């Protein structure tokens, strides 16, 4: 008789235990799901801030002037000239490193391509500025346009 009573008591306790575990699992699942469904506000804010900061830095860089052969020339003009002249290309790389490296480490890359005989430079969209590649890719769609800004000639017209 006493054996039967003990078995029932154990069964009841076991049922409560299983129910509690199940509820805990449900709650954990709930939090996981809520995280999945929630908008990533910090990410949106970060993207926004990277975009703004990057744009300001880039425009400040392009507006800045440096001395070449005793004449002050804007970086935007140097970018235009760098396509055909090694002297300007080295100056551009030197200035770009000087300005961007302290701000963004080695994440700013300058690529001068020559898809047509026209003067055209292209700045790669990745891995620009700070943060992850995926963020930069998805948030700086205008970046290739910056390249087009300084293109002169047929290639620019095509774009």
């Amino acid at each position, binding site marked *: 008789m006493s054996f*039967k*009573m003990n078995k*029932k008591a154990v*069964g*009841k306790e076991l*049922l*409560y235990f*299983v*129910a509690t575990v*199940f*509820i805990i699992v*449900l*709650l954990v699942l*709930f939090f996981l*799901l*809520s995280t999945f*469904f*929630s*908008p990533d*506000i910090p990410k*949106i804010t970060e993207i*926004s801030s990277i*975009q*703004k900061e990057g*744009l300001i830095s880039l*425009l400040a860089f*392009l*507006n800045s002037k440096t001395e070449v*052969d005793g*004449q002050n020339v*804007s970086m*935007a*003009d140097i970018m*235009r*000239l760098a*396509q*055909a002249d090694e002297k300007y290309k080295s100056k551009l790389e030197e200035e770009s490193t000087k300005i961007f490296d302290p701000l963004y480490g080695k994440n700013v890359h300058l690529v001068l391509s020559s898809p047509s005989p026209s*003067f055209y430079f292209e700045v790669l969209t990745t891995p620009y500025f700070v943060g992850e590649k995926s963020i930069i890719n998805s948030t700086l769609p*205008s970046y290739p*346009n*910056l390249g*087009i*800004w300084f293109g*002169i*000639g047929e290639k*620019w*017209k095509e*774009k």
Partner: protein
Amino acid sequence: MEGKMINKKGHVFAIGLVIATLIICGVILYSFTQSSKKIEIAMASPYALQELYDKETKFTFYAEDSAHLAENQALFEVCQKGAVSGLSCKPYEPESAYVIWNDTCNPVLSIDELFKKSFNSSFKNFIANYPDETLNNANFSTTIMGSKADINFDIISLKKTPEIVISGILTYSAEHAYDSSFSHNLEIGPDEFRNIYSLVYAKLKECIGRSSDMTLVTSCMNELNPDRWGMKVHSSSSEGKNYLLFDLTSKNKFLFENNGLKFELLVLKFAIKV
């Protein structure tokens, strides 16, 4: 019998607890996803607006840079034409690179129109090539006074697309009116060419007053030293008349398109009958 009653209550309690928890979780999850959508929409609005401001910043930079390039191109074209235009303007025949300056053909009469025409043409081309349909069709007006070019764009409405639809009823999109006007400081403006004309004629009057000998006049004219230009004068004659030929070379290089992009000194050539 008493033990069986206790077990039933336990079962009912446990099952009830699980069902209640499931219902509560469901309700919370549903309301959370609904509020998430609202937060997303709320976040999209300032984000979209910021994108519009960025769009404006980039275009402003582009427009200012275009003004700089248009100035360079206009200066090159003006120098190529000897800083004059009009039917009464003729080249100096023995050396056609020089244009004859006189009372009916000189920079005072035509430089404003010539510079503005060239500046506007280049500026318009640059703006038309901007990769945004709303902005590259924008109307603008230019006023060139002294060493400044004032550029005013008409109000452009920058609209963020696609539109955001809330609960299938309310549709909205961020919209921002862009009204750009800016001043571009010209490194060399139309005034510079008027000054050269005045300077050259004043010096010529002084030099002729000293001597009528062409060698001495030429030597005297070479004393002229305009601020932004290096100047060389030499004499020449055509059809029995004496001329002074002027070669002005800018002290700074300019960026212009002439069978490819060039970054070179500008050269202004003109002739004056003595």
